[in-house]
């Protein structure tokens, strides 16, 4: 049952082979048994989840079930869910009970899905290993000494360890795709503006985008059907026709043009990952695709640009955490300034403080043009590179991450080494394009490797088709670490 696809689970529920309550309890039991090891969840609330499952069973009985009704979904702890503790992986929000629902949560509630719990994450989504969480690191189910990636590391770990049917994540610079790759699951970050950011605690507003993390492309398509849609409460939410992301899944791939950016196969990519990605490309050619070399000449600047823009936005987005209206307030202080400084110093972890300081610095007087403005200009060059590339190909493929999962503590104290682990994913966020990662085999130490698929704006259905056809031809996605 735990390896069933969402479609299969839905059929089981519809056929009354299992109830939502039973399915939810099954996962709750697995969480109780395994979460102490993986630490994939920050908050589990069995009572609330089961109450939702009871309601879902009633809905199924009444014949009102939709695709995800009754299915237990893990929610990244970045989404405000009314009545749920919502921490964003931070001590700052350690006791924060969200008084409202994020749009994504509303959508799952409307679909009759069960909220199984809030998954662990890097603090305020800042990290690539889940080691910055105030609630402790998450373990990679394929090797407990390895990181699951980040920032949606809890979600990736939970999906891989079968501690949920599917999960939500968010991706600002690779936070869905990189942990998906490192944990051997499928994840997609849709076009910026496709999923409402309302109620999703902001890291870098112009880059943040939510998306699903699941066992397969087909599951991701079903999840996207629920998560997407226009929301008037988010000014950057796009007003578009509702689409069914499963509609192209079964199309053949003959004639598909795959662009391979030379920059993604250059120095810095580990041999095992390179080999698995090449094998995946070969598989695609067998499926009828053709390959074309492309260039994204400015992509090497994506990391520096990102580490100007994202911290700049974050430094401002995180100013609201001041200990006045909610969140952590220091126990002792001498005056207002001291209250602010101590509350924030105590509430935020080292990486968050580092990024706030970087952002504050690049925006401060005298540096704005050299850093922020220059980064915004290069951002346009990077987006233009993709626009040029998509004249030559339908999708772009390459590695998701330069290596398989590294060990906990391995990157040590050097933030720059950590930042470079998102080297292939960041440019996609800067351009606002959709990107996904699918499992494509195993590298050294039998750790999963990920193939990144980048599509043009609003081409999610096509990308899911491309991923699904590969998953029909291979079984990497159905391998589980159990």
């Amino acid at each position, binding site marked *: 049952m735990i390896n069933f696809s969402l479609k299969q689970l839905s059929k089981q529920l519809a056929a009354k082979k299992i109830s939502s309550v039973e399915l939810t309890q099954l996962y709750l039991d697995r969480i109780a048994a395994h979460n102490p090891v993986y630490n994939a969840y920050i908050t589990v609330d069995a009572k609330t989840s089961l109450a939702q499952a009871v309601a879902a069973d009633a809905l199924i009985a009444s014949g009102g079930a939709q695709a995800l009704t009754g299915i237990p979904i893990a929610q990244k702890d970045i989404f405000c869910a009314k009545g749920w503790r919502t921490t964003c992986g931070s001590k700052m929000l350690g006791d924060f*009970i969200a*008084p409202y629902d994020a749009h994504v949560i509303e959508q799952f509630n409307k679909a009759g899905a069960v909220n199984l719990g809030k998954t662990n994450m890097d603090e305020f989504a800042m990290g690539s290993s889940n080691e910055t969480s105030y609630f402790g690191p998450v373990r990679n189910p394929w090797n407990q000494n390895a990181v699951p990636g980040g920032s949606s590391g809890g979600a990736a770990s939970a999906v891989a360890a079968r501690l949920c049917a599917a999960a939500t994540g968010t991706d600002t610079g690779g936070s869905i795709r990189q942990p998906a790759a490192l944990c051997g699951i499928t994840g997609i970050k849709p076009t910026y503006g496709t999923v409402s950011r309302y109620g999703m605690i902001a890291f870098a507003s112009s880059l943040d985008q939510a998306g699903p993390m699941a066992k397969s492309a087909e599951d991701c398509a079903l999840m996207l059907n629920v998560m997407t849609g226009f929301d008037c409460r988010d*000014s950057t939410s796009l007003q578009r026709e509702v689409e069914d992301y499963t509609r192209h899944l079964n199309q053949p791939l003959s004639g598909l043009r795959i662009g391979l950016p030379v920059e993604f196969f250059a120095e810095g990519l580990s041999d095992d990952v390179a080999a698995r990605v090449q094998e995946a490309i070969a598989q695609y050619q067998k499926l009828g695709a053709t390959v074309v070399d492309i260039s994204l000449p400015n992509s090497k*600047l994506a990391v520096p640009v990102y*580490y100007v823009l994202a911290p700049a936005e974050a430094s401002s987005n995180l100013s609201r955490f001041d200990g006045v209206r909610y*969140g952590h307030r220091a126990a002792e202080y001498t005056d207002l300034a001291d209250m602010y400084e101590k509350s924030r110093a105590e509430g935020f972890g080292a990486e968050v403080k580092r990024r706030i300081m970087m952002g504050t610095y690049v925006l401060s007087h005298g540096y704005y043009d050299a850093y922020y403005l220059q980064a915004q*200009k*290069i951002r346009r060059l990077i987006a233009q590179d993709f626009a040029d590339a998509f004249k030559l190909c339908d999708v772009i493929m390459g590695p998701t991450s330069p290596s398989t999962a590294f060990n906990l503590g391995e990157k040590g104290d050097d933030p720059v080494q950590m930042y470079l682990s998102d080297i292939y994913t960041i440019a996609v966020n800067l351009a606002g394009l959709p990107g996904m990662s699918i499992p494509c085999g195993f590298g050294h130490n039998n750790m999963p490797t990920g193939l990144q698929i980048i599509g043009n704006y609003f081409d999610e259905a096509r990308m899911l088709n491309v991923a699904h056809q590969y998953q029909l031809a291979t079984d990497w996605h159905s391998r589980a670490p159990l």
Partner: protein
Amino acid sequence: MSLSTADVQKVARLARLAMNDTEIEAARAQLSGIFELIAQMQAVDTAGIEPMSHAQDLSQRLREDNVTETNQRELFQSIAPQVESGLYLVPQVIE
């Protein structure tokens, strides 16, 4: 490029982060390393390039001027560190 201790102190102060000397020094070293990485940007000629703030070139949607929110003070203040008579309390503000 490398940052001075004074730069880091100024930034910590602007960002309202209490930091002791050890933390300032650690941050200075790390931030200097990061800014070395960032310095790659400076070599790029961006003359005539329009800065990009948003992924899509769209314009702001406008909301009708209708009241949609109701009073939720009790709920919102149930998670506040310190309130009294409906007010959020903070250490005395001196103008």
